[in-house]
């Protein structure tokens, strides 16, 4: 019997609105259709009307879970544009915040993954271990999420010397929990039954889809922006990139659990070796030009591009979130699996849809996705129309390259 199992737009599996159509034969998934776009907010366009300082706050609102990944990438992009490097102390603080975020994001995923396979005890325990991380964030930045710590040329808040011993102690308190998750993952036979050999992605699949972060590393693809193109203080501390081999859901969980241990190590080293000095260059203006910034977000490489004409707002701001790349692996990973496994596979890339959304137009039940090329075409058309209305001769390049149809 062929049926379509709808997962979404609102479904207990998903914490955000998105739509997966599982085309199934009995319990077996034959085809997957992914529809996103329910969360589109036009952030890139919005960025063009904000000052550079406001842009950092704006991109922080892209996502609540990786709320510091986008600001770090944005700060990297703006510093690349300005051709400066933030003070040493600020770089260390960025690293600490970035890794604390990875810690809470991975714990959040672990809990959700537990919930998705009906293991609610794991869910609650993982989120209990996540609480101290949020407490640390609150103590440092004043907020449990949306820390507002980053800015071009530095950070907004200093780490107080009297907080550091407390932070280290609190980190110590979650180490046993993470060891427990590691041990459960290694030893629990029922978890192995549910997670091993499920949703396998080969390194070739990763290359085809361009997947990033733990999704790629679980398949044995050794990529990590923190090591490959060091920024912040990642080249000043000892840590290793965790790489799996099997590419199944089990390895994705395993990579994330071990990454949490590395994160704790990085945070501890940064806090112990925190250099004294300024935390902010007090940047006044941006030169014209381009800048790119990257950050290894919990879900993979987060990429920001900025184009400046020397004014106070960017001319173009482009964001590519890691989930946009990871999402397409589901086409490969979920095909041929059962419905029970497919739901787990969809969750295993730790998708974050609000980061990913692209513009979509729904009219009369028919959907069109508008890509960059089409947007340029629409814009050119409008310019030509306005020009003819005003009786002005449009620029020659525009005329030459004008709308193709």
């Amino acid at each position: 019997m062929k049926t379509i199992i709808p997962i979404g737009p609102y479904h207990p599996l998903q914490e955000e609105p998105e739509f997966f159509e599982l085309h199934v034969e009995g319990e077996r998934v034959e085809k997957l259709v992914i529809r996103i776009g329910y969360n589109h907010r036009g952030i890139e366009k919005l960025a063009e009307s904000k000052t550079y300082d406001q842009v950092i706050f704006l991109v922080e609102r892209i996502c609540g879970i990786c709320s510091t990944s986008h600001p770090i990438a944005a700060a990297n992009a703006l510093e690349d544009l300005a051709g400066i490097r933030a003070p040493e102390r600020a770089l260390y603080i960025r690293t600490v915040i970035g890794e604390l975020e990875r810690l809470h994001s991975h714990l959040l995923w672990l809990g959700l993954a537990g919930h998705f396979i009906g293991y609610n005890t794991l869910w609650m325990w993982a989120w209990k271990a996540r609480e101290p991380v949020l407490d640390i964030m609150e103590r440092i930045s004043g907020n449990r999420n949306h820390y507002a710590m980053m800015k071009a040329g530095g950070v907004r808040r200093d780490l107080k010397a009297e907080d550091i011993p407390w932070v280290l102690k609190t980190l110590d308190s979650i180490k046993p929990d993470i060891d427990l998750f590691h041990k459960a993952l290694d030893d629990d036979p029922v978890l192995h039954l549910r997670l091993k050999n499920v949703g396998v992605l080969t390194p070739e699949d990763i290359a085809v889809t361009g997947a990033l972060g733990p999704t790629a590393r679980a398949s044995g693809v050794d990529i990590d922006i923190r090591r490959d193109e060091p920024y912040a203080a990642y080249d000043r501390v000892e840590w290793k990139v965790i790489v799996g081999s099997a590419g199944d859901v089990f390895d994705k969980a395993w990579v994330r659990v071990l990454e949490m241990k590395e994160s704790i190590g990085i945070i501890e080293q940064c806090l112990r070796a925190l250099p004294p000095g300024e935390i902010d260059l007090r940047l006044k203006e941006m030169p014209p030009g381009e800048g790119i910034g990257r950050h290894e977000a919990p879900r993979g490489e987060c990429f920001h591009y900025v184009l400046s004409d020397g004014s106070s707002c960017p001319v173009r701001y482009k964001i590519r979130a890691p989930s946009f790349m990871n999402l397409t692996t589901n086409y490969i990973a979920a095909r041929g699996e059962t419905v029970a496994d497919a739901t787990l596979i969809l969750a295993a890339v730790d998708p974050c849809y609000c980061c990913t959304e692209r513009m979509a137009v729904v009219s009369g039940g028919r959907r069109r996705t508008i890509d960059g090329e089409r947007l340029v075409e629409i814009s050119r058309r409008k310019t030509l129309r306005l020009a003819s209305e005003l009786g002005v001769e449009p620029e020659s390049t525009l005329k030459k390259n004008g709308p193709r149809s």
Partner: protein
Amino acid sequence: MTLLFNLLIFPGLLFTGFAGGLLSWFDRKLSARLQWRRGPVWFQPFADLAKLMGKETILPAEGSRPLFLFAPVAGLAAVLVASWIIWLSLLRPEMGFVGDLIAVFYLLSVPALALIVGGSASANPLASLGAGREIKLLLAYELPLLLSLLVPVVQAGSLRLGGILAHQSAAGSIAGSWSGLLALAAAVLCQQAKLGLPPFDIAEAETEISSGPLIEYSGPPLALFKFTKMLMLPVMPLFLVTVFWNGIGSSLGGHLAAVAKVLALVTAAVLIKNTNPRLRIDQAVKFFWGPVTILAASALLLALFGL
């Protein structure tokens, strides 16, 4: 009159319902404590039911409406009758009939059948997927459960619950023997699936198929399904205590011991529920037809050799 009293007050609707609500709270509270949560107040299951009873009943546009509405009633009625037969043999063993064990066994599988019928009647693809899973699960655990129930039958030489109880009060509990202990272990695992608890909550799997067969249910029919599930919490363990573990005895000490035994079985179910992820349906079928059936069959073999 007595029959009406038996069905509605004791041991029927009111008494078993109250026990079910309390045990449901026990399950929720214990689960919450295991998960570092506070858990609900003791009357929360009753409050949930009362609230559901007051909600609108929405009927699916397609599918069979009579079946859709009949299924939850059938499931509830079957558990009530099963509970009545068990209590009757516990309180007045001479009132039982030959084969009441078999009758209870079948009555206790009616809630699962009701879920299958009700889910299929709703014509929802997720519900039919869940119903399909429930059929497979039912087929998987009924075989080892029946095999393990045959152990007391062989030991007591009787198909009557009263006969099995009389045998136990004379020769000690069935679970005291090797074959009985193994059979009880197999039955406890089957009980987990019968109660629809993780790792066997496959038919309802909330995060996969949004509660499966129950997806289209709302208001009072949903309340009846929930209530049936609550009733299974005391009835199924009580059934196991009756056939394997001495029943409720005749003294106050025996009664208290029986309460402790039911609580022990429910606690075991809650512990299994909270320390395991949900299995896939093929893994669950393999589990029941493999290790559990072997366990129950070897218990039966031991019983035939008089161990």
